């Protein structure tokens, strides 16, 4: 049916849609979604024939379109104002009345009459269109679009400005319309998504990033979380005000590794490494497999036995002088694939997050009400609200990773170590994780060490780099 093939389109404001490939088959009803400014309405407008095609092609665009959007609404009002200006008679023109706006050649008078009744607009029919309120204007637009026997209905935020009764009425009406007319809907909010929507198109930066069949529950949930994260004003939840973590001296480095050597019986993994991490520095650590990235990090976290044979200063402790690893770990949030493997306990989502306060795998202490509250804030942030009691080990891999990242961040640690946090994650989840990391970097409370293979894979906010090479000994 309708097809956009590698289509690039430019709009008046210079906004461009790039390389859109999209097919709408018969009996499909699409939702276009994405963050503000992602190009959702632009994509809908392309279906209505707007925009200047720069490259690519379209086929089978609909001939009759019912289009409801702020843009279409603005155009009508603009046209009305122009009429007024153009009126050379020295009388006050009130412009076109609602009846004339609704009943045109394309309008099916029976359907229109029925909708006027349902929207309770009878008393407005003789009033001037441009005197209507936003909500009333929206209703007029909807009646026009729904009564013109369109080949395609484009409903861009159709519920905006509608009162609850009209909202419900419209939803009910649409369930009948979709039996014979395909619908493309644009919505910012996922929770308003009508049941008849069968497919979801996710826009970002003028590109159609994801196309998801609604029956694919997992992809749908991930998209939901991504959208949630992108569209919510991201705020990292509060820290636990009752925590007993001692304050760090802001003038001291968080970590100072001097002349580090890590040796195994038959090889030297790291030799003479020096690394100093100051508060509020964000680091990227990269290097090929076997270059010792994880080994160095485990010296910092205290998980490597040779942390006692090296010159390591962390969080005010010169290692090996009577401090316990729990005194070290309380300052660190940590995520890695290995942690996810080790984190195989039959506990709840909320408890996994709360275990971050105790640096434990599983929860062995009684959590406070405040900690439970913070865990719920995190679940909401991740788009998992209300799922706190579900078992962790039944989650998808990507969701588990997200939870472990929340676990690492929950105590607002001075140092957050993310060892290849995106490894094994699909595109949607990767974007979610990166958005969270950028947020934490920007918050100025936590220093981040981000580890990956590729030095060129950069994250906004990270400004220090340490690239390891495979030692000759270990080649």
């Amino acid at each position, binding site marked *: 049916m309708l097809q956009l093939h590698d289509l690039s389109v430019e709009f008046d404001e210079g906004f461009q849609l790039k390389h859109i490939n999209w097919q709408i088959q018969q009996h499909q009803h699409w939702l276009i979604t994405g963050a503000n400014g992602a190009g959702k309405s632009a994509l809908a407008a392309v279906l209505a024939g707007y925009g200047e095609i720069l490259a690519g092609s379209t086929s089978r665009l609909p001939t009759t379109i019912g289009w409801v959007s702020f843009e279409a609404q603005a155009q009508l009002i603009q046209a009305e104002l122009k009429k007024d200006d153009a009126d050379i008679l020295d009388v006050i023109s009130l412009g076109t009345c609602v009846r004339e706006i609704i009943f045109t050649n394309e309008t099916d008078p029976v359907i229109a009459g029925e909708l006027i009744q349902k929207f309770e607009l009878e008393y407005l029919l003789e009033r001037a269109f441009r005197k209507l309120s936003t909500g009333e204007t929206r209703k007029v637009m909807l009646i026009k679009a729904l009564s013109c026997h369109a080949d395609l209905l484009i409903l861009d935020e159709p519920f905006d400005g509608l009162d609850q009764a009209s909202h419900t009425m419209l939803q009910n009406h649409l369930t009948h319309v979709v039996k014979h007319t395909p619908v493309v809907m644009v919505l910012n909010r996922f929770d308003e998504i009508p049941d008849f929507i069968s497919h979801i198109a996710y826009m970002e930066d003028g590109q159609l990033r994801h196309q998801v069949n609604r029956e694919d529950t997992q992809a749908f949930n991930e998209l939901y979380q991504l959208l949630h994260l992108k569209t919510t004003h991201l705020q990292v939840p509060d820290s636990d005000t009752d925590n007993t973590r001692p304050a760090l001296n802001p003038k001291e480095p968080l970590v100072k590794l001097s002349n580090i050597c890590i040796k*195994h019986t038959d090889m030297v993994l790291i030799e003479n490494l020096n690394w100093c991490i100051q508060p509020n520095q964000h680091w990227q650590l990269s290097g090929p497999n076997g270059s010792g990235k994880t080994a160095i990090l485990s010296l910092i976290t205290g998980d490597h036995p040779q942390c006692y044979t090296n010159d390591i200063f962390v969080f005010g402790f010169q290692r090996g002088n009577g401090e*316990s690893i729990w005194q070290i770990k309380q300052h660190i949030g940590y995520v890695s694939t290995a942690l996810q493997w080790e984190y195989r306990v039959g506990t709840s989502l909320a408890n996994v997050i709360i275990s971050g306060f105790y640096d*434990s795998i599983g929860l062995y202490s009684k959590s406070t009400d405040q900690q439970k509250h913070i865990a719920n804030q995190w679940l909401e942030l991740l788009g998992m609200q209300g799922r706190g009691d579900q078992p962790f080990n039944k989650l998808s891999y990507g969701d588990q990773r997200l939870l472990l990242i929340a676990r690492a961040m929950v105590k607002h640690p001075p140092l957050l170590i993310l060892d290849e946090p995106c490894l094994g994650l699909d595109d949607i989840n990767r974007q979610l994780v990166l958005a969270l990391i950028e947020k934490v970097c920007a918050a100025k409370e936590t220093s981040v060490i981000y580890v990956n293979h590729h030095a060129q894979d950069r994250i906004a906010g990270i400004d220090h780099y340490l690239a390891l090479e495979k030692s000759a000994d270990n080649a």
Partner: protein
Amino acid sequence: MSNNYFNTLPLREQLEQLAKCRFMHMNEFTEGVEALKGKKMVIIGCGAQGLNQGLNLRDSGLDVSYTLRQSAITEKRQSFKNASENGFTVGTYEELIPTADIVLNLTPDKQHSPVVAAVMPLMKQGACLSYSHGFNIVEEGMKVREDLTVIMVAPKCPGSEVRAEYVRGFGVPTLIAVHEDNDPQGHGLALAKAYAVGTGGHKAGVLMSSFIAEVKSDLMGEQTILCGMLQTGSLLCFDKMIEKGMDAGYASKLIQYGWETITEALKYGGVTNMLDRLSNPAKIKAFDLSEELKVIMRPLYNKHQDDIINGTFSATMMADWANDDVNLLGWRAATGETAFEKTPAGDMEISEQEYFDHGILMVAMVKAGVELAFETMTAAGIIADSAYYESLHETPLIANTIARKKLYEMNATISDTAEYGCYLYNHACLPLLADFMKGMDTDVIGRGLASDDNGVDNARLIEVNAALRDHPVEAIGATLRGHMADMKKIV
């Protein structure tokens, strides 16, 4: 020759010591590792317990080093590598023992006498000697220098688990004790508690016991239900299935992994839960078989307990030690030659439930063994808490070892003391059950009951369920598992 310490005590004190066992409250550990802070801890031996306890203690901020015999260091044996590759200082007895405030003896039981004899003269005045098993003190009657404090800290799990649980932020249940004859400064308990905190044990629960209660219950548990019953059961059940023409691979797999699967149910909900996993007819069958087994085996359990209490067992075993382990090594070799040991597990799928349904006799054996061991121990004056830990609680651990390594390796993994007792039990129990086994068929081991009718008599089912739930091991088990669950929210 050695002088059995227990036998030197008057009955009054014997009974008092046997009955010592108390589950300690979390708030008894608020001092943390303070009592050991800045003290020099030197561990003798770097096997699984030695290494992993040392890693935990060091991560708790304590000063840990290892001492090994000169030969182990010169030849760079595994124990030397374990310690040095993990960044610990390693030195000879002469180098390190004189510097130690506390010496942790984590060598195998059999070496305790020579090791303690070697280190004691080197230890500084007023230092502390720690054991993880009381055999040397109680059975061999080791006399420790009067100025030294003697304590015991015994994590009730294999070394690898001691470490794994610590790293997760938890610990393993741990038994501590102070040898009252050697507590000149009265700080033995403080040191033992700090040591338990250093290994993470306080988070999982600490039992305050005595050297005597630990030894007499530990020996009884390991040689009867834990190792002995599972070994005898494995051999009898396997041979029965082969005799009845079943596939050898299936029989081998059903037994190797069956113990672990059915005792997993035991771990979570005691004997009751293990039998509740069976259908009603199978449950009644297993119950009846176990009642029969208990009658046949009770004299054997009594004999083991009596020999342990009066020292006959340890004397016999030590005679074998003195005789170059002739019996032990002979029995070990024979275990390696059994048909079960030599038949690899088949690659067929066996579902979790099938291990129960096809292993009714195995369930009956575990029930009979657990209850007999518990009944015998408590009858001998050992308190129920100890008896529970040394019977029911540890059975899944041994079952897990059999699942991973079968019998030969299981015996090589456990202590020599446990292994010796296991063979004694096995040799007595195999002929004891010969007649009983003649009546067994594949409905109770291998194929399961014919499933066309699951009907049972109401009155009989009520009777069986009540008997299961009323057994004293179930009451103490529910209490102790409750303590554990309070601490370990997530099991």
